[in-house]
Protein backbone atom coordinates (compact mmCIF):
# COMPACT_ATOMS: atom_id res chain seq x y z
CA UNK A 1 0.00 0.00 0.00
CA UNK A 2 2.64 2.41 1.13
CA UNK A 3 4.95 1.26 -1.63
CA UNK A 4 2.33 1.73 -4.34
CA UNK A 5 1.74 5.30 -3.18
CA UNK A 6 5.43 5.98 -3.27
CA UNK A 7 5.58 4.50 -6.75
CA UNK A 8 2.74 6.72 -7.96
CA UNK A 9 4.36 9.81 -6.46
CA UNK A 10 7.60 8.92 -8.21
CA UNK A 11 5.90 8.42 -11.59
CA UNK A 12 4.11 11.72 -11.38
CA UNK A 13 7.28 13.45 -10.22
CA UNK A 14 9.18 12.17 -13.24
CA UNK A 15 6.34 13.12 -15.59
CA UNK A 16 5.99 16.64 -14.28
CA UNK A 17 9.62 17.40 -13.49
CA UNK A 18 10.63 18.56 -16.96
CA UNK A 19 7.70 20.97 -17.03
CA UNK A 20 8.54 22.40 -13.62
CA UNK A 21 12.20 22.56 -14.59
CA UNK A 22 11.21 24.57 -17.63
CA UNK A 23 8.94 26.83 -15.57
CA UNK A 24 11.61 27.32 -12.92
CA UNK A 25 14.18 28.61 -15.42
CA UNK A 26 11.66 30.90 -17.09
CA UNK A 27 12.27 33.14 -14.04
CA UNK A 28 16.05 32.98 -14.38
CA UNK A 29 17.83 36.26 -15.08
CA UNK A 30 20.97 34.34 -16.09
CA UNK A 31 19.72 33.51 -19.55
CA UNK A 32 20.64 29.81 -19.40
CA UNK A 33 18.98 26.63 -18.19
CA UNK A 34 21.79 25.36 -15.98
CA UNK A 35 22.61 28.16 -13.62
CA UNK A 36 19.91 30.09 -11.75
CA UNK A 37 21.14 33.61 -11.02
CA UNK A 38 18.18 35.59 -9.71
CA UNK A 39 14.44 35.94 -10.09
CA UNK A 40 13.20 37.99 -13.03
CA UNK A 41 10.05 38.50 -15.07
CA UNK A 42 12.05 39.84 -18.03
CA UNK A 43 11.36 36.81 -20.23
CA UNK A 44 7.65 37.26 -19.72
CA UNK A 45 8.02 40.93 -20.54
CA UNK A 46 9.85 39.97 -23.70
CA UNK A 47 7.02 37.64 -24.67
CA UNK A 48 4.45 40.36 -24.17
CA UNK A 49 6.55 42.93 -26.03
CA UNK A 50 6.90 40.70 -29.07
CA UNK A 51 3.92 41.68 -31.24
CA UNK A 52 4.67 38.94 -33.75
CA UNK A 53 4.38 36.39 -30.96
CA UNK A 54 1.15 37.98 -29.71
CA UNK A 55 -0.35 37.70 -33.18
CA UNK A 56 0.59 34.01 -33.22
CA UNK A 57 -1.09 33.59 -29.83
CA UNK A 58 -4.16 35.28 -31.24
CA UNK A 59 -4.10 33.01 -34.30
CA UNK A 60 -3.80 29.96 -32.09
CA UNK A 61 -6.78 31.07 -30.02
CA UNK A 62 -8.89 31.81 -33.06
CA UNK A 63 -8.04 28.50 -34.66
CA UNK A 64 -8.76 26.65 -31.42
CA UNK A 65 -12.08 28.33 -30.68
CA UNK A 66 -13.31 28.26 -34.26
CA UNK A 67 -12.25 24.70 -35.00
CA UNK A 68 -13.59 23.29 -31.75
CA UNK A 69 -16.91 25.13 -32.12
CA UNK A 70 -17.43 23.94 -35.69
CA UNK A 71 -16.19 20.46 -34.85
CA UNK A 72 -18.63 20.33 -31.93
CA UNK A 73 -21.59 21.19 -34.16
CA UNK A 74 -20.58 18.69 -36.84
CA UNK A 75 -19.62 16.07 -34.26
CA UNK A 76 -22.97 16.31 -32.43
CA UNK A 77 -24.86 15.69 -35.65
CA UNK A 78 -22.44 12.90 -36.48
CA UNK A 79 -23.05 11.25 -33.11
CA UNK A 80 -26.81 11.54 -33.63
CA UNK A 81 -26.49 10.00 -37.09
CA UNK A 82 -24.50 7.09 -35.67
CA UNK A 83 -27.04 6.74 -32.85
CA UNK A 84 -29.91 6.36 -35.32
CA UNK A 85 -27.95 4.23 -37.80
CA UNK A 86 -28.91 0.59 -38.28
CA UNK A 87 -27.04 -1.73 -35.96
CA UNK A 88 -24.64 -3.11 -38.58
CA UNK A 89 -23.67 0.34 -39.82
CA UNK A 90 -23.37 1.70 -36.31
CA UNK A 91 -20.39 -0.53 -35.49
CA UNK A 92 -18.67 0.25 -38.79
CA UNK A 93 -19.11 4.00 -38.42
CA UNK A 94 -17.90 3.92 -34.83
CA UNK A 95 -14.81 1.95 -35.79
CA UNK A 96 -14.00 4.37 -38.62
CA UNK A 97 -14.39 7.18 -36.11
CA UNK A 98 -12.06 5.59 -33.58
CA UNK A 99 -9.38 4.80 -36.15
CA UNK A 100 -9.07 8.53 -36.79
CA UNK A 101 -8.40 9.13 -33.10
CA UNK A 102 -5.72 6.50 -32.70
CA UNK A 103 -3.94 7.00 -36.02
CA UNK A 104 -0.66 8.94 -35.70
CA UNK A 105 -0.79 12.71 -36.13
CA UNK A 106 2.08 12.55 -38.59
CA UNK A 107 0.05 10.41 -40.97
CA UNK A 108 -3.00 12.61 -40.61
CA UNK A 109 -0.88 15.71 -41.16
CA UNK A 110 0.88 14.28 -44.19
CA UNK A 111 -2.37 13.10 -45.75
CA UNK A 112 -3.94 16.50 -45.22
CA UNK A 113 -0.94 18.13 -46.84
CA UNK A 114 -1.42 15.90 -49.90
CA UNK A 115 -5.17 16.58 -49.92
CA UNK A 116 -4.78 20.37 -49.71
CA UNK A 117 -2.10 20.37 -52.39
CA UNK A 118 -4.26 18.34 -54.76
CA UNK A 119 -7.36 20.41 -53.96
CA UNK A 120 -5.38 23.59 -54.56
CA UNK A 121 -6.12 25.06 -51.13
CA UNK A 122 -3.42 27.50 -50.15
CA UNK A 123 -1.55 26.50 -46.99
CA UNK A 124 -2.21 28.92 -44.16
CA UNK A 125 -5.15 29.84 -41.96
CA UNK A 126 -7.77 27.89 -43.96
CA UNK A 127 -5.79 24.69 -44.22
CA UNK A 128 -4.90 24.72 -40.52
CA UNK A 129 -8.53 25.44 -39.56
CA UNK A 130 -9.89 22.69 -41.79
CA UNK A 131 -7.46 20.09 -40.52
CA UNK A 132 -8.10 21.04 -36.89
CA UNK A 133 -11.85 20.70 -37.44
CA UNK A 134 -11.26 17.34 -39.08
CA UNK A 135 -9.24 15.80 -36.28
CA UNK A 136 -11.55 17.25 -33.61
CA UNK A 137 -14.79 15.79 -34.97
CA UNK A 138 -14.06 12.17 -33.96
CA UNK A 139 -13.23 13.37 -30.43
CA UNK A 140 -16.57 15.17 -30.13
CA UNK A 141 -18.41 12.12 -31.49
CA UNK A 142 -16.66 9.95 -28.93
CA UNK A 143 -17.72 12.23 -26.07
CA UNK A 144 -21.33 12.76 -27.19
CA UNK A 145 -22.32 9.26 -28.31
CA UNK A 146 -22.23 7.64 -24.83
CA UNK A 147 -24.62 10.31 -23.54
CA UNK A 148 -27.04 9.54 -26.36
CA UNK A 149 -26.76 5.83 -25.71
CA UNK A 150 -27.42 6.18 -22.00
CA UNK A 151 -30.56 8.23 -22.75
CA UNK A 152 -33.68 6.09 -22.41
CA UNK A 153 -35.51 5.89 -25.77
CA UNK A 154 -38.80 6.39 -23.93
CA UNK A 155 -37.79 10.04 -23.43
CA UNK A 156 -38.29 10.53 -27.15
CA UNK A 157 -41.59 8.61 -27.09
CA UNK A 158 -42.71 10.67 -24.10
CA UNK A 159 -41.90 13.96 -25.81
CA UNK A 160 -43.72 12.95 -28.99
CA UNK A 161 -46.62 11.75 -26.89
CA UNK A 162 -46.82 15.23 -25.35
CA UNK A 163 -47.09 16.84 -28.77
CA UNK A 164 -43.46 17.51 -29.64
CA UNK A 165 -42.48 17.36 -33.31
CA UNK A 166 -39.04 16.19 -34.45
CA UNK A 167 -37.49 19.61 -33.89
CA UNK A 168 -39.02 19.99 -30.41
CA UNK A 169 -37.79 16.53 -29.50
CA UNK A 170 -34.29 17.50 -30.53
CA UNK A 171 -34.12 20.94 -28.91
CA UNK A 172 -36.13 20.29 -25.76
CA UNK A 173 -35.18 16.74 -24.88
CA UNK A 174 -32.19 15.30 -26.72
CA UNK A 175 -30.01 18.40 -26.72
CA UNK A 176 -30.41 19.25 -23.00
CA UNK A 177 -29.77 15.64 -22.14
CA UNK A 178 -26.49 15.40 -24.04
CA UNK A 179 -25.25 18.89 -23.12
CA UNK A 180 -22.63 17.61 -20.63
CA UNK A 181 -21.22 15.41 -23.40
CA UNK A 182 -21.19 18.32 -25.81
CA UNK A 183 -19.23 20.48 -23.37
CA UNK A 184 -16.82 17.67 -22.70
CA UNK A 185 -16.31 17.23 -26.44
CA UNK A 186 -15.84 20.95 -26.97
CA UNK A 187 -13.17 21.24 -24.27
CA UNK A 188 -11.36 18.15 -25.48
CA UNK A 189 -11.37 19.53 -29.02
CA UNK A 190 -10.15 22.89 -27.70
CA UNK A 191 -7.17 21.39 -25.89
CA UNK A 192 -6.34 19.12 -28.83
CA UNK A 193 -6.35 22.11 -31.16
CA UNK A 194 -4.33 24.31 -28.77
CA UNK A 195 -1.49 21.88 -28.32
CA UNK A 196 -1.49 20.23 -31.72
CA UNK A 197 1.90 20.34 -33.30
CA UNK A 198 2.33 17.55 -35.84
CA UNK A 199 -0.71 18.15 -38.02
CA UNK A 200 -0.30 21.93 -37.97
CA UNK A 201 3.39 21.64 -38.77
CA UNK A 202 2.52 19.82 -42.00
CA UNK A 203 -0.32 21.99 -43.26
CA UNK A 204 0.79 25.48 -42.23
CA UNK A 205 2.49 27.87 -44.55
CA UNK A 206 2.61 31.40 -45.87
CA UNK A 207 3.99 32.72 -42.60
CA UNK A 208 0.93 31.53 -40.71
CA UNK A 209 1.92 29.85 -37.48
CA UNK A 210 0.48 28.59 -34.22
CA UNK A 211 2.10 28.59 -30.80
CA UNK A 212 3.29 25.01 -30.75
CA UNK A 213 4.89 25.33 -34.17
CA UNK A 214 6.45 28.63 -33.14
CA UNK A 215 7.78 27.22 -29.87
CA UNK A 216 9.27 24.35 -31.81
CA UNK A 217 11.15 26.63 -34.16
CA UNK A 218 12.27 28.89 -31.28
CA UNK A 219 13.44 25.89 -29.28
CA UNK A 220 15.45 24.68 -32.25
CA UNK A 221 17.27 28.01 -32.31
CA UNK A 222 17.72 27.31 -28.60
CA UNK A 223 18.81 30.65 -27.18
CA UNK A 224 16.15 32.66 -25.45
CA UNK A 225 14.41 31.79 -22.20
CA UNK A 226 11.32 33.56 -23.55
CA UNK A 227 10.46 30.14 -24.98
CA UNK A 228 10.27 28.93 -21.40
CA UNK A 229 8.06 31.85 -20.46
CA UNK A 230 5.77 31.24 -23.40
CA UNK A 231 5.56 27.51 -22.66
CA UNK A 232 4.77 28.24 -19.05
CA UNK A 233 1.91 30.49 -20.06
CA UNK A 234 0.58 27.88 -22.45
CA UNK A 235 0.85 25.22 -19.77
CA UNK A 236 -1.06 27.35 -17.27
CA UNK A 237 -3.75 28.07 -19.82
CA UNK A 238 -4.25 24.38 -20.61
CA UNK A 239 -4.28 23.64 -16.91
CA UNK A 240 -7.04 26.19 -16.34
CA UNK A 241 -9.08 24.62 -19.15
CA UNK A 242 -8.76 21.23 -17.50
CA UNK A 243 -9.86 22.72 -14.17
CA UNK A 244 -12.88 24.41 -15.77
CA UNK A 245 -13.81 21.16 -17.49
CA UNK A 246 -13.40 19.23 -14.24
CA UNK A 247 -15.57 21.64 -12.26
CA UNK A 248 -18.27 21.54 -14.93
CA UNK A 249 -18.44 17.76 -15.13
CA UNK A 250 -18.43 17.51 -11.34
CA UNK A 251 -21.38 19.83 -11.14
CA UNK A 252 -23.23 17.97 -13.88
CA UNK A 253 -22.72 14.62 -12.21
CA UNK A 254 -23.92 15.97 -8.86
CA UNK A 255 -27.03 17.33 -10.56
CA UNK A 256 -27.86 14.26 -12.56
CA UNK A 257 -26.22 11.79 -10.23
CA UNK A 258 -29.26 10.10 -8.77
CA UNK A 259 -31.60 8.74 -11.32
Amino acid sequence: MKFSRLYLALVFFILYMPIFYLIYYSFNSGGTMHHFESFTLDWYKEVFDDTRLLIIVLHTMIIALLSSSLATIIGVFGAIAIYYAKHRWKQTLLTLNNILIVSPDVIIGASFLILFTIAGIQLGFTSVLLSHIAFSIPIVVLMVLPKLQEMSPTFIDAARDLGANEWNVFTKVVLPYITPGIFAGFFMALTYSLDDFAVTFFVTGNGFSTLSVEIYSLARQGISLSVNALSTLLFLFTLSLVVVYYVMTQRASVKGGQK
Partner: protein
Amino acid sequence: MDDRVIIRFDHVTKQYDHDLPVLDDVSFEIERGKFYTLLGPSGCGKTTILRLIAGFIEPTKGDIYFHEKRINNVPANKRQVNTVFQDYALFPHLNVFENVAFGLRIKKMPKADIERKVKEALRFVNLEGYEQRAIHEMSGGQRQRVAIARAIVNEPDVLLLDEPLSALDLKLRTEMQYELRELQRRLGITFIFVTHDQEEALAMSDEIFVLNKGKIEQRGTPKDIYDEPVNRFVADFIGESNIISGTMIDDFVVEFANQQFTCVDHGFAKNERVDIVIRPEDLELTTIEHGKLHVRVDSVLFRGVHYELCCYDAYGNEWLVHSTKKAEIGDEIGLHFEPEAIHVMKQSGGE
Protein backbone atom coordinates in the same frame (compact mmCIF):
# COMPACT_ATOMS: atom_id res chain seq x y z
CA MET B 1 -71.55 3.40 -35.17
CA ASP B 2 -72.30 4.13 -31.55
CA ASP B 3 -71.04 7.60 -30.65
CA ARG B 4 -69.77 6.38 -27.30
CA VAL B 5 -67.09 4.51 -29.21
CA ILE B 6 -63.86 6.46 -29.10
CA ILE B 7 -61.29 4.01 -30.48
CA ARG B 8 -61.97 1.19 -32.88
CA PHE B 9 -59.53 -1.48 -34.08
CA ASP B 10 -60.60 -3.06 -37.34
CA HIS B 11 -58.74 -6.32 -38.09
CA VAL B 12 -55.44 -4.88 -36.95
CA THR B 13 -52.26 -6.92 -37.42
CA LYS B 14 -48.78 -5.87 -36.40
CA GLN B 15 -45.82 -7.82 -37.64
CA TYR B 16 -42.10 -7.06 -37.52
CA ASP B 17 -40.17 -8.31 -40.53
CA HIS B 18 -41.01 -11.96 -41.07
CA ASP B 19 -41.50 -12.93 -37.46
CA LEU B 20 -44.81 -14.18 -36.15
CA PRO B 21 -47.28 -11.30 -35.80
CA VAL B 22 -47.19 -9.69 -32.34
CA LEU B 23 -50.81 -8.72 -32.88
CA ASP B 24 -52.91 -10.96 -35.06
CA ASP B 25 -56.11 -9.67 -36.71
CA VAL B 26 -57.55 -7.96 -33.65
CA SER B 27 -60.83 -6.03 -33.63
CA PHE B 28 -62.45 -4.22 -30.72
CA GLU B 29 -64.02 -0.95 -29.61
CA ILE B 30 -63.12 1.28 -26.70
CA GLU B 31 -65.88 3.44 -25.24
CA ARG B 32 -65.51 6.81 -23.60
CA GLY B 33 -65.32 7.14 -19.83
CA LYS B 34 -64.44 3.54 -19.01
CA PHE B 35 -61.49 1.88 -17.35
CA TYR B 36 -60.07 -0.82 -19.61
CA THR B 37 -57.32 -3.25 -18.78
CA LEU B 38 -55.25 -5.17 -21.28
CA LEU B 39 -54.13 -8.26 -19.40
CA GLY B 40 -51.77 -10.97 -20.51
CA PRO B 41 -48.34 -12.51 -20.14
CA SER B 42 -45.33 -10.73 -21.56
CA GLY B 43 -45.18 -10.88 -25.33
CA CYS B 44 -48.95 -11.25 -25.68
CA GLY B 45 -49.31 -7.99 -27.62
CA LYS B 46 -50.78 -5.75 -24.93
CA THR B 47 -48.07 -3.12 -25.10
CA THR B 48 -48.23 -3.28 -28.91
CA ILE B 49 -51.91 -2.26 -28.76
CA LEU B 50 -50.98 0.64 -26.50
CA ARG B 51 -48.19 1.80 -28.81
CA LEU B 52 -50.50 1.55 -31.81
CA ILE B 53 -53.04 3.77 -30.06
CA ALA B 54 -50.34 6.22 -28.97
CA GLY B 55 -49.00 6.35 -32.51
CA PHE B 56 -45.43 5.17 -31.87
CA ILE B 57 -45.91 2.36 -34.37
CA GLU B 58 -48.20 1.79 -37.34
CA PRO B 59 -50.29 -1.31 -38.03
CA THR B 60 -49.07 -3.72 -40.70
CA LYS B 61 -52.65 -4.52 -41.72
CA GLY B 62 -56.06 -3.22 -40.70
CA ASP B 63 -57.28 0.18 -39.56
CA ILE B 64 -57.43 2.13 -36.34
CA TYR B 65 -60.20 4.70 -35.90
CA PHE B 66 -60.31 7.53 -33.38
CA HIS B 67 -63.73 9.18 -33.13
CA GLU B 68 -64.44 7.28 -36.37
CA LYS B 69 -61.55 8.95 -38.20
CA ARG B 70 -58.88 6.66 -39.57
CA ILE B 71 -55.63 7.50 -37.76
CA ASN B 72 -53.22 4.84 -39.04
CA ASN B 73 -50.69 7.41 -40.24
CA VAL B 74 -51.35 10.24 -37.78
CA PRO B 75 -48.08 10.80 -35.86
CA ALA B 76 -48.02 10.48 -32.06
CA ASN B 77 -47.69 14.23 -31.51
CA LYS B 78 -51.00 14.86 -33.32
CA ARG B 79 -53.11 12.42 -31.31
CA GLN B 80 -55.40 13.28 -28.40
CA VAL B 81 -54.03 10.55 -26.21
CA ASN B 82 -51.33 10.68 -23.58
CA THR B 83 -49.24 7.96 -22.05
CA VAL B 84 -47.90 7.15 -18.61
CA PHE B 85 -44.78 5.10 -19.26
CA GLN B 86 -43.54 2.11 -17.36
CA ASP B 87 -40.28 3.87 -16.44
CA TYR B 88 -42.19 7.21 -16.17
CA ALA B 89 -39.80 8.81 -18.71
CA LEU B 90 -39.68 12.06 -16.73
CA PHE B 91 -37.15 14.48 -18.20
CA PRO B 92 -34.21 14.63 -15.76
CA HIS B 93 -33.11 18.12 -16.87
CA LEU B 94 -36.48 19.67 -15.96
CA ASN B 95 -38.04 20.11 -12.52
CA VAL B 96 -41.51 18.85 -11.60
CA PHE B 97 -43.29 21.99 -12.80
CA GLU B 98 -41.50 22.03 -16.16
CA ASN B 99 -42.08 18.33 -16.70
CA VAL B 100 -45.81 18.78 -16.24
CA ALA B 101 -45.78 21.97 -18.31
CA PHE B 102 -43.94 20.31 -21.21
CA GLY B 103 -46.98 19.53 -23.34
CA LEU B 104 -48.58 22.92 -22.69
CA ARG B 105 -45.39 24.80 -23.62
CA ILE B 106 -45.27 22.89 -26.91
CA LYS B 107 -48.82 24.07 -27.57
CA LYS B 108 -47.61 27.64 -26.85
CA MET B 109 -50.29 28.22 -24.25
CA PRO B 110 -50.17 31.61 -22.45
CA LYS B 111 -47.93 31.60 -19.35
CA ALA B 112 -50.71 32.33 -16.87
CA ASP B 113 -52.80 29.43 -18.18
CA ILE B 114 -49.85 27.07 -17.98
CA GLU B 115 -49.22 28.10 -14.38
CA ARG B 116 -52.85 27.51 -13.44
CA LYS B 117 -53.24 24.19 -15.25
CA VAL B 118 -49.98 22.71 -13.97
CA LYS B 119 -50.92 23.64 -10.39
CA GLU B 120 -54.34 22.11 -10.90
CA ALA B 121 -52.88 18.89 -12.30
CA LEU B 122 -50.41 18.63 -9.43
CA ARG B 123 -53.23 19.18 -6.95
CA PHE B 124 -55.12 16.37 -8.68
CA VAL B 125 -52.33 13.93 -7.91
CA ASN B 126 -51.67 15.34 -4.41
CA LEU B 127 -48.33 16.91 -5.23
CA GLU B 128 -48.99 20.54 -4.35
CA GLY B 129 -45.85 22.36 -3.29
CA TYR B 130 -43.49 20.05 -5.16
CA GLU B 131 -43.28 22.30 -8.26
CA GLN B 132 -39.64 23.27 -7.89
CA ARG B 133 -38.32 19.82 -6.94
CA ALA B 134 -35.86 18.07 -9.21
CA ILE B 135 -36.97 14.69 -10.50
CA HIS B 136 -34.17 12.83 -8.74
CA GLU B 137 -35.39 14.21 -5.42
CA MET B 138 -38.76 12.48 -5.82
CA SER B 139 -39.58 8.96 -4.60
CA GLY B 140 -40.87 6.23 -6.94
CA GLY B 141 -44.49 6.85 -5.97
CA GLN B 142 -44.11 10.61 -6.41
CA ARG B 143 -42.50 10.21 -9.84
CA GLN B 144 -45.44 8.06 -10.78
CA ARG B 145 -47.76 10.90 -9.83
CA VAL B 146 -45.72 13.45 -11.74
CA ALA B 147 -45.95 11.21 -14.80
CA ILE B 148 -49.73 11.03 -14.41
CA ALA B 149 -50.00 14.81 -13.93
CA ARG B 150 -47.84 15.39 -17.00
CA ALA B 151 -50.24 13.26 -19.05
CA ILE B 152 -53.61 14.50 -17.73
CA VAL B 153 -52.68 18.19 -17.85
CA ASN B 154 -53.10 17.94 -21.64
CA GLU B 155 -56.73 16.86 -21.18
CA PRO B 156 -56.48 13.79 -23.40
CA ASP B 157 -59.57 11.83 -24.45
CA VAL B 158 -57.77 8.64 -23.59
CA LEU B 159 -55.04 8.02 -21.03
CA LEU B 160 -52.75 5.09 -21.76
CA LEU B 161 -50.96 3.48 -18.82
CA ASP B 162 -48.16 1.04 -19.63
CA GLU B 163 -47.62 -1.14 -16.54
CA PRO B 164 -47.15 2.01 -14.45
CA LEU B 165 -47.30 0.21 -11.12
CA SER B 166 -44.79 -2.55 -11.80
CA ALA B 167 -41.84 -0.60 -10.37
CA LEU B 168 -43.56 0.12 -7.04
CA ASP B 169 -43.53 -2.01 -3.90
CA LEU B 170 -46.61 -4.00 -2.95
CA LYS B 171 -48.10 -1.56 -0.43
CA LEU B 172 -47.68 1.46 -2.68
CA ARG B 173 -49.02 -0.51 -5.61
CA THR B 174 -52.28 -1.32 -3.80
CA GLU B 175 -52.60 2.33 -2.78
CA MET B 176 -52.04 3.52 -6.34
CA GLN B 177 -54.66 1.07 -7.63
CA TYR B 178 -57.28 2.86 -5.54
CA GLU B 179 -55.96 6.25 -6.55
CA LEU B 180 -55.94 5.47 -10.26
CA ARG B 181 -59.48 4.14 -10.14
CA GLU B 182 -60.58 7.23 -8.22
CA LEU B 183 -58.74 9.49 -10.65
CA GLN B 184 -60.46 7.88 -13.62
CA ARG B 185 -63.87 8.47 -12.02
CA ARG B 186 -63.12 12.10 -11.27
CA LEU B 187 -61.69 12.85 -14.72
CA GLY B 188 -64.34 10.84 -16.54
CA ILE B 189 -61.98 10.01 -19.40
CA THR B 190 -61.09 6.61 -20.80
CA PHE B 191 -58.16 4.80 -19.20
CA ILE B 192 -56.42 1.95 -20.97
CA PHE B 193 -54.24 0.16 -18.49
CA VAL B 194 -51.72 -2.51 -19.42
CA THR B 195 -50.67 -5.11 -16.88
CA HIS B 196 -49.68 -8.72 -16.41
CA ASP B 197 -51.01 -8.74 -12.84
CA GLN B 198 -54.47 -10.30 -12.77
CA GLU B 199 -55.32 -8.98 -9.30
CA GLU B 200 -54.62 -5.44 -10.48
CA ALA B 201 -56.84 -6.02 -13.50
CA LEU B 202 -59.70 -7.45 -11.46
CA ALA B 203 -59.55 -4.70 -8.86
CA MET B 204 -59.52 -1.70 -11.19
CA SER B 205 -61.26 -2.36 -14.48
CA ASP B 206 -64.69 -1.84 -15.94
CA GLU B 207 -63.65 -4.17 -18.69
CA ILE B 208 -60.74 -6.55 -19.15
CA PHE B 209 -59.23 -7.83 -22.39
CA VAL B 210 -57.30 -11.03 -21.80
CA LEU B 211 -54.64 -11.40 -24.46
CA ASN B 212 -52.52 -14.32 -25.48
CA LYS B 213 -50.15 -14.67 -28.44
CA GLY B 214 -51.43 -11.58 -30.22
CA LYS B 215 -55.09 -12.45 -29.91
CA ILE B 216 -57.85 -11.40 -27.56
CA GLU B 217 -58.90 -14.57 -25.75
CA GLN B 218 -61.77 -12.98 -23.88
CA ARG B 219 -63.18 -9.58 -23.04
CA GLY B 220 -65.66 -8.77 -20.33
CA THR B 221 -66.19 -7.36 -16.87
CA PRO B 222 -63.84 -8.63 -14.15
CA LYS B 223 -66.69 -10.74 -12.76
CA ASP B 224 -67.48 -12.27 -16.16
CA ILE B 225 -63.90 -13.18 -16.72
CA TYR B 226 -63.35 -14.56 -13.28
CA ASP B 227 -66.58 -16.55 -13.13
CA GLU B 228 -66.98 -17.52 -16.76
CA PRO B 229 -63.55 -17.93 -18.35
CA VAL B 230 -63.95 -19.11 -21.92
CA ASN B 231 -61.01 -21.45 -21.94
CA ARG B 232 -58.20 -23.02 -20.00
CA PHE B 233 -55.75 -20.16 -20.70
CA VAL B 234 -58.04 -17.47 -19.31
CA ALA B 235 -59.07 -19.58 -16.33
CA ASP B 236 -55.45 -20.30 -15.53
CA PHE B 237 -54.20 -16.77 -16.03
CA ILE B 238 -56.92 -14.94 -14.15
CA GLY B 239 -56.46 -16.73 -10.85
CA GLU B 240 -55.59 -19.95 -9.11
CA SER B 241 -58.02 -22.61 -10.11
CA ASN B 242 -58.55 -26.30 -10.54
CA ILE B 243 -58.72 -27.08 -14.24
CA ILE B 244 -59.30 -30.69 -15.24
CA SER B 245 -60.65 -32.42 -18.30
CA GLY B 246 -64.05 -34.02 -18.32
CA THR B 247 -66.90 -35.10 -20.56
CA MET B 248 -70.27 -33.42 -21.03
CA ILE B 249 -72.66 -36.37 -20.76
CA ASP B 250 -75.78 -34.37 -21.43
CA ASP B 251 -77.15 -30.88 -20.73
CA PHE B 252 -76.62 -30.19 -17.00
CA VAL B 253 -74.65 -33.40 -16.46
CA VAL B 254 -70.89 -33.52 -16.57
CA GLU B 255 -68.44 -36.30 -15.78
CA PHE B 256 -65.00 -35.82 -14.28
CA ALA B 257 -62.87 -37.69 -11.76
CA ASN B 258 -64.81 -40.82 -12.78
CA GLN B 259 -68.08 -39.45 -11.37
CA GLN B 260 -71.08 -37.66 -12.80
CA PHE B 261 -72.17 -34.31 -11.38
CA THR B 262 -75.09 -32.00 -11.87
CA CYS B 263 -74.06 -28.62 -13.25
CA VAL B 264 -75.69 -25.49 -14.68
CA ASP B 265 -74.00 -25.59 -18.09
CA HIS B 266 -75.68 -26.75 -21.25
CA GLY B 267 -75.49 -26.41 -25.02
CA PHE B 268 -72.57 -28.78 -25.57
CA ALA B 269 -72.63 -31.79 -27.84
CA LYS B 270 -73.33 -35.10 -26.16
CA ASN B 271 -70.14 -36.69 -24.82
CA GLU B 272 -68.09 -33.66 -25.85
CA ARG B 273 -64.67 -33.46 -24.20
CA VAL B 274 -64.54 -30.30 -22.08
CA ASP B 275 -62.39 -28.48 -19.50
CA ILE B 276 -63.83 -28.01 -16.02
CA VAL B 277 -62.95 -25.14 -13.70
CA ILE B 278 -63.67 -25.09 -10.00
CA ARG B 279 -62.21 -22.16 -8.03
CA PRO B 280 -60.32 -23.15 -4.86
CA GLU B 281 -62.59 -20.98 -2.71
CA ASP B 282 -65.68 -22.85 -3.98
CA LEU B 283 -64.43 -26.13 -2.54
CA GLU B 284 -65.53 -26.82 1.01
CA LEU B 285 -63.87 -29.19 3.50
CA THR B 286 -66.20 -31.81 4.88
CA THR B 287 -66.32 -35.44 6.00
CA ILE B 288 -65.83 -38.22 3.48
CA GLU B 289 -69.54 -39.19 3.68
CA HIS B 290 -70.74 -35.65 2.91
CA GLY B 291 -68.17 -34.85 0.24
CA LYS B 292 -68.72 -35.15 -3.47
CA LEU B 293 -65.02 -35.86 -3.92
CA HIS B 294 -62.81 -38.03 -1.78
CA VAL B 295 -59.27 -36.64 -1.55
CA ARG B 296 -56.10 -36.96 0.47
CA VAL B 297 -54.36 -33.84 1.80
CA ASP B 298 -50.86 -33.51 0.39
CA SER B 299 -49.72 -30.14 1.72
CA VAL B 300 -51.07 -27.25 3.79
CA LEU B 301 -49.96 -23.62 3.61
CA PHE B 302 -51.16 -20.87 5.92
CA ARG B 303 -51.95 -17.84 3.76
CA GLY B 304 -53.28 -15.43 6.38
CA VAL B 305 -56.96 -15.19 5.51
CA HIS B 306 -57.19 -18.88 4.66
CA TYR B 307 -55.34 -22.16 4.46
CA GLU B 308 -54.25 -23.35 1.06
CA LEU B 309 -54.61 -27.10 0.83
CA CYS B 310 -53.25 -29.16 -1.98
CA CYS B 311 -55.07 -32.49 -2.27
CA TYR B 312 -55.13 -35.45 -4.65
CA ASP B 313 -58.05 -37.69 -5.51
CA ALA B 314 -57.76 -41.40 -6.31
CA TYR B 315 -57.29 -40.64 -10.04
CA GLY B 316 -54.30 -38.35 -9.57
CA ASN B 317 -56.15 -35.04 -10.12
CA GLU B 318 -54.80 -32.17 -8.07
CA TRP B 319 -57.34 -30.12 -6.10
CA LEU B 320 -56.40 -26.76 -4.66
CA VAL B 321 -58.64 -25.71 -1.78
CA HIS B 322 -58.88 -22.37 0.02
CA SER B 323 -60.47 -22.99 3.37
CA THR B 324 -60.68 -21.34 6.75
CA LYS B 325 -60.75 -24.84 8.26
CA LYS B 326 -57.49 -26.59 8.80
CA ALA B 327 -56.63 -30.17 7.86
CA GLU B 328 -53.50 -32.19 8.55
CA ILE B 329 -51.22 -33.58 5.90
CA GLY B 330 -52.24 -37.15 5.09
CA ASP B 331 -55.89 -36.69 6.17
CA GLU B 332 -58.55 -38.34 4.05
CA ILE B 333 -61.30 -35.76 3.59
CA GLY B 334 -64.35 -35.01 1.51
CA LEU B 335 -64.82 -31.96 -0.69
CA HIS B 336 -68.22 -30.44 -1.23
CA PHE B 337 -69.21 -27.94 -3.92
CA GLU B 338 -72.43 -26.54 -5.38
CA PRO B 339 -73.52 -27.23 -8.99
CA GLU B 340 -72.95 -23.52 -9.79
CA ALA B 341 -69.30 -23.84 -8.76
CA ILE B 342 -68.65 -26.08 -11.76
CA HIS B 343 -67.74 -24.07 -14.83
CA VAL B 344 -67.59 -25.98 -18.10
CA MET B 345 -65.46 -24.64 -20.98
CA LYS B 346 -64.90 -25.73 -24.54
CA GLN B 347 -61.56 -27.44 -24.92
CA SER B 348 -58.94 -25.40 -26.66
CA GLY B 349 -55.69 -26.62 -28.04
CA GLY B 350 -52.45 -25.73 -26.35
CA GLU B 351 -51.67 -24.72 -22.79
